[in-house]
């Protein structure tokens, strides 16, 4: 059962070298159950922090996060959150299939009772034949496929993705994005993706949350009404470019007219 995600007026402060830093300021975000959301923003805008709070890795300083009516901590204890990190984070001593089995092992669930069969998931992410390979024998893209299979093995209510293909080359990235959409559609879960690529956000999501930095806040929410299933050909359509343009405009809304040419080099 996919769950909706609601972030309600969340504030996050960190103490860094004795001073209070406001990382996130009154962040509001709503994503319906079964939808695909993308959070986009420049480096340091707190988008990873926001995603980690949804995963109950941090707690908000103020405000509330609600996943299908429950706090993130309850979902986490129920093993209902799937998380894909920027690095594959596979255990190098476990084979691919044993890495995919890890959440079952920790939840104390026998393979026969698994919400999703590890062997099927390995087929779904295109790693058939590599079940018994060690992560060190796989390329970065293949490792990330295994990490996606691991995130889905408990049939999570939400799938959280923190720049999952950020470290890969453009070609592999495009291919894996298309595959991720297929896997997500098949799983029926709610997905929330953090990215810093405008094209990726528009291509993947139903709803794009544009963030601005210092302090991190949601600038605009942009609906993406492109039909599904999405194909790479859609990226050449006028509708796609129009939405891309809207996201870009929102990202650079607070830059002065000459910032883009001179002083804006550190804020791409």
């Amino acid at each position, binding site marked *: 059962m996919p769950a909706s995600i609601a972030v309600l007026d969340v504030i996050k402060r960190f103490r860094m070298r004795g001073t209070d830093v406001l990382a996130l300021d009154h962040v509001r975000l709503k994503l319906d159950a079964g939808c695909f959301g993308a959070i986009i923003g420049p480096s340091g805008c707190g988008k990873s922090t926001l995603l980690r709070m949804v995963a109950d890795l941090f707690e908000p300083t103020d405000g509330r996060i609600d996943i299908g009516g429950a706090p993130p901590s309850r979902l986490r204890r129920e093993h209902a959150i799937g998380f894909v990190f920027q690095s594959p984070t596979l255990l190098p*001593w476990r084979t691919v299939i044993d890495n995919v089995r890890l959440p079952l092992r920790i939840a104390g669930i026998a393979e026969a009772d698994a919400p999703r069969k590890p062997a099927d998931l390995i087929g779904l992410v295109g790693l058939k034949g590599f079940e018994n390979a060690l992560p060190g024998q796989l390329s970065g893209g293949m490792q990330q496929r295994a990490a996606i299979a691991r995130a889905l093995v408990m049939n999570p209510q939400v799938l959280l993705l923190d720049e999952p293909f950020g470290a890969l080359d453009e070609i592999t990235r495009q291919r894996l994005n298309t595959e991720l959409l297929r896997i997500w559609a098949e799983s029926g879960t709610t997905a929330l993706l953090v990215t810093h690529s405008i094209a990726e956000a528009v291509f993947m999501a139903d709803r794009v949350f544009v963030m601005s930095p210092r302090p991190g806040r949601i600038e605009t929410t942009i609906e993406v009404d492109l039909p599904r299933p999405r194909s790479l050909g859609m990226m050449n359509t006028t509708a796609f470019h129009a939405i891309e343009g809207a996201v870009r405009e929102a990202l650079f809304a607070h830059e002065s007219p000459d910032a883009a040419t001179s002083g804006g080099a550190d804020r791409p």
Partner: protein
Amino acid sequence: MKRLPAFWLPVVTTLALLLIAEGAQRSGLFPITVAAPSQVWQVLTGNPRLFGETVVPTLQAAMLGYLCAAVAAVAAASVATLVAATWTPIYRFGVALSSIPLTATTPLLVVWIGNGLSTRVLIAALASYFPILVGAMQGFRAFESTSAELFHVLSASPLQRLRLLVLPASLPLLFAGLKIAAPSAVLGTILAEWAGAERGLGVLMIYALGAFDVPKVWFAVIASCALAAGVYALAAAIEMRVVRWQAATVLED
């Protein structure tokens, strides 16, 4: 086919060097303080009880001391990891222990505890404790920070985190420490035997030196080297069985 030269090259080289040494000694090119390989071999074959009276007691004390050091170091590293406040004191105590010159304290310990097995075990343990401690302390922190986040999201219990993440991730560094410490345990034992023991390689060294029995001195030296290398090889062999993922080769997709 590629493994064959890798295996045979050192064997052939060693045999060739032994033959050259034998020839050089017999033709009088070496001084009398260098024993011919055949003379050293005769020390071993000519005295049936020698092996049991020298190599075996030294190996026994070294292995016991090594095991004690391993248990103590891993236990200390566990405490340091679990209780953050003890990290620095435990490390500094280890540094202090390893800074003590054992050549100076060994006679003292022999006077205090006597020249029994326990003294030799203690000194072997003191000599090998610190590398294992460093390996274990670094090893218990060696897991990736995102792996810790993963285990949190998966709601792993502290025990699951220890068994499935912290311990396996520590093995490469732990074994690095164990391998460095292995020859030190042998060295520590021999040092203790010099300061007073009834049997062992160290005793043979002192005796043979006093009697100017050159082949026996060489036998003791070569046996010590072989013993140190042997304990190292044992640790390396266990590592190869336990830490298999390190040698993995990379495929492309």
